[in-house]
């Protein structure tokens, strides 16, 4: 059975750090598969108008398609060029929860994310997505 590594990306150029590390690790491991995951921030407890609700399914499809084409596809292309087996997943939710959920569903061995330097008030109060992921994850997390 191959080793599965999850890479959490957010479309920033610094994603490369995590991607490069995961690529190196996968070459060292040998029989390894990378799963690139992008999480669209979404809370089921937000407030919306009737019109937004009526169009929500359509918007969700559009958001997923956009993220797949703009964020996931270029990363997969790069990994493919380096002969690394990889697939992509776009999902909605809280970043930490969603990465953890995908990792469980995929039976992954490790989650690799890059460090963020977000210093907003929200982060100070509730902690960053990375910090939350480290606390909640049931499998090893590597923060680059």
């Amino acid at each position, binding site marked *: 059975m191959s080793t599965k590594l999850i890479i959490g990306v957010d479309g920033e150029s610094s994603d490369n750090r995590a991607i490069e590390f995961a690529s190196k690790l996968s070459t060292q491991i040998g029989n390894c598969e990378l799963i690139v995951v992008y999480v*669209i921030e*979404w809370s*089921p*407890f*937000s*407030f*919306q*108008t*009737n*019109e*937004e*609700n*009526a*169009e*929500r*399914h*359509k918007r*969700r*499809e559009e*958001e*997923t398609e956009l993220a797949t084409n703009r964020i996931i596809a270029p990363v997969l292309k790069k990994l493919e060029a380096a002969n690394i087996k990889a697939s992509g997943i776009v*999902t*909605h*939710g809280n970043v930490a929860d*969603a990465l953890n*959920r995908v990792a469980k569903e995929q039976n992954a061995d490790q989650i690799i994310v890059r460090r963020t330097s977000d210093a907003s008030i929200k982060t100070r109060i509730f902690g960053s997505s990375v910090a939350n992921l480290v606390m909640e994850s049931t499998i090893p997390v590597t923060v680059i």
Partner: protein
Amino acid sequence: MKLNQKLMLIISSLFLMISNASAEQATSLDARVNEVFANFTGPFVNFIFAPLYGTNFPWIVLWLVVAASIFTVYFGFVQFRFFGHAIALVKGDYSNPDDAGEVSHFQALATALSGTVGLGNIAGVGVAVAIGGPGATFWMITAGLLGMAAKFTECTLGVKYRNEYDNGTVSGGPMYYISKGFKERGLFGGKFLAVLFSIFCILGAFGGGNMFQANQAHAAISGITGDYPGWITGIIFAVIVFVVIVGGVKSIARVTEKIVPIMGVLYVGAALVILMVNYDKIGWAFNEIFTGAFTGLGVAGGFVGALIQGFKRAAFSNEAGVGSAAIAHSAVKTKEPITEGFVSLLEPLIDTVVICTMTALVITISGQLISDPATGLYVLDGARIATVDNNTGVALTSAAFGAGISWFPYLLGVAVIMFAFSTMISWSYYGLKAWTYLFGESKNAELSFKILFCIFIVIGAAASLGPVIDFSDAAIFAMAVVNIFAIYFLMPIVKKELVSYVTRLKNGEIKKYKN
């Protein structure tokens, strides 16, 4: 001319009009609008509120009470048996994680609530208590509890028979479940009833969902700033609503959607603070409510007067049986329509049993209702109880809160404006769905409705409370006439869904995703 320039021109001419119009001219314009309005809507209002033969009990109130009671018994007191399950659904315990990003149960409930929580809870309760006395509150709570079953039934049907279009959008509501459900059961007249419902829904959108809101928002603003002609408020509101629903400026609607829940929490919080400070009077207030419910405590119309007012205001506030919520709830993502029914039954509970009761308790405790110290009965002023400064509606609620927290009327003024605005936006959507059901989903059809909607805001703000409140009630209750009639034929479908769901819930087929 660019859009910005046009907008500027409109706004500047508006200010010019306001500054030039003398108070006398303005008042006469208000009076004219009022007279025409009262004459035009009078017969419709009289029919809806016609008393039962030989009594002074409006048939429509009996219609609602009987329906809500039948639904309660038919579904085996669903509102009490599945209350805990409804909470679990809202928390997302049964939501499939693969559906993340779709409309959640919480979101559908919150959106529907933003259309119902509002002036009905503030001004409506003020009217009910002023006319029916504190006893009206008891009947309001009863109506709220029974109404939960009505809401459950209509929202389940709303999700089951909604239209899901290829482009990923959804449309639902009584007009869809009446026509599709009747066809499925092989019954005639579904299409006719759906059309009739749509007509009443459009009138309801113009009445309770629009003019009543504009009218009370004007009352709230002029209560703070001093009296000025209603049409000025009307035009300002109409311009803002126009910008949102026609101009597509979603940011205003989005800000409102976020502020309204905060206002709701602040409102209930303030009521709790006042009740805590006056904790020694709570027992007395409940006594007034229970005694008044059956004796009327000398109120005009006695106990029947209290009952009518209680039921009327509750129905107007939580809209159970009216069908409007079914339109809002049908956007949810679920494979089980009945789950949205469970979630929706929380709506009358929050709206009527909690928020309306808070308002009524604060009014009762505040001493705004004048009673005769010798007899303990309320002093009558015409058909209603005499109040300090002769207040009724939103002014009575405002004065009652002001007696407890002196600066609260200002915050309440802002809350009323925000509630009015969010209810208008919600009802513009309900009305629009009924309109497009009748005239087809075209851009022109949508635009014509939206423009008409804005015109009615001005009329609503200019008309005096009497004719507007009567028409608002009449239009909303007319929706309930058609909706409830149709639900009687469709309720076996809901029963089937309920039995099937409960069986699968018990045998573990319905999975819980969160513990």
